[in-house]
């Protein structure tokens, strides 16, 4: 007699996809067993949908600052090196020319000191900038944890 009952596929289709053919609906009204089977599915999966969404008990690291750091690491030569080098070479070229032309040691010394001062300021500024970057990266990491 079991073959006359609705199949498991039919019951699930009725509950989850709201698919009912006429004969199945008629059978369901007359058969307590199939009607109970349908109710059991409804009852179980009703409870299932009430369950809260699980949550992670840890913070997900943000890879964006890390990627930026990798990019910075990828260019080992600071951007100011080539212009500075060009500047220093020009200054020394000019110095050589002027000292030969005027035969003046004061001018030569003055220009040497000025060039050294400019280079020193550039290096100092770069040192501060790099340290600031490191501090920012460290701060990002601390915030993420």
């Amino acid at each position, binding site marked *: 007699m079991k073959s006359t009952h609705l199949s*498991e*596929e039919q019951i*699930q289709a009725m509950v*989850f996809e709201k698919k009912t053919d006429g004969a199945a609906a008629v059978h369901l009204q007359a058969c307590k*067993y199939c009607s*109970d*089977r349908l*109710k*059991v*599915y409804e*009852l*179980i*999966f009703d*409870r*299932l*949908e*009430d*369950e809260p*969404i*699980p*949550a*992670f008990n*840890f913070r*997900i*690291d*943000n*890879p*964006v*600052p890390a*990627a*930026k750091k990798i990019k910075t690491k990828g260019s080992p030569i600071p951007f100011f090196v080539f212009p500075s080098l060009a500047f220093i070479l020009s200054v020394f070229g000019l110095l050589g020319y002027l000292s030969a032309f005027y035969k003046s040691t004061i001018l030569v010394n003055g220009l040497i000191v000025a060039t050294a001062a400019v280079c020193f300021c550039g290096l100092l500024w770069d040192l501060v900038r790099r340290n600031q970057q490191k501090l920012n990266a460290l701060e*990002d990491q601390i915030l993420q944890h």
Partner: protein
Amino acid sequence: MKDQELVKRLLDEDADAFELLVKNTEGLVAHIVFKMVAIAEDRKDLVQDIYFSAYKHIKTFKFQSKLTTWIGSIAYNTCYNYLQKKKVLLIEEKQDEEMEEHGIETLANRMAEESGNEVLNKIFRAELRAILNTGIRQLPPLYATLITLYHYQELSYQEISQITNLPEGTLKSYLFRARKQIKDYVLLNYIKEDL
């Protein structure tokens, strides 16, 4: 925020956009990871891998699906590879048919008896929920994931198919078996508790 805008901000290395991406997809990723990975300690590394991989490959996202579905597929594939490495079976069939008829009658009768009494009804539903939670935990990882995606996340067959890369026919067949396994488990264990 639309997917296009979020992806553009991610490509511009906007850290806030990444936080937003996590916020929008965390529920789905958590559902997949919790259902597929039983070891709690491994989940953290997997989740970091999922989001790092999503960020790294965001430029390959072609807007052929929703961004959440795309992240879901990364989560599923990451967990799938993890299970393959651990040699965990994704699908395992269990049959508890012999108790079915008696179980249905018992559960249906209990449902009818307690529908009029609010307190008893609450107890009955709490008992049922406890059995159900254990039943889902005992499902094979793939079945638990499909049940979660369909019933908790309320995704369509098409979206689940995009996440799991399973054909829709296979997906429906797995969902059918998964629901049946849950029902069989609940009936069997409800009877045991009732005896």
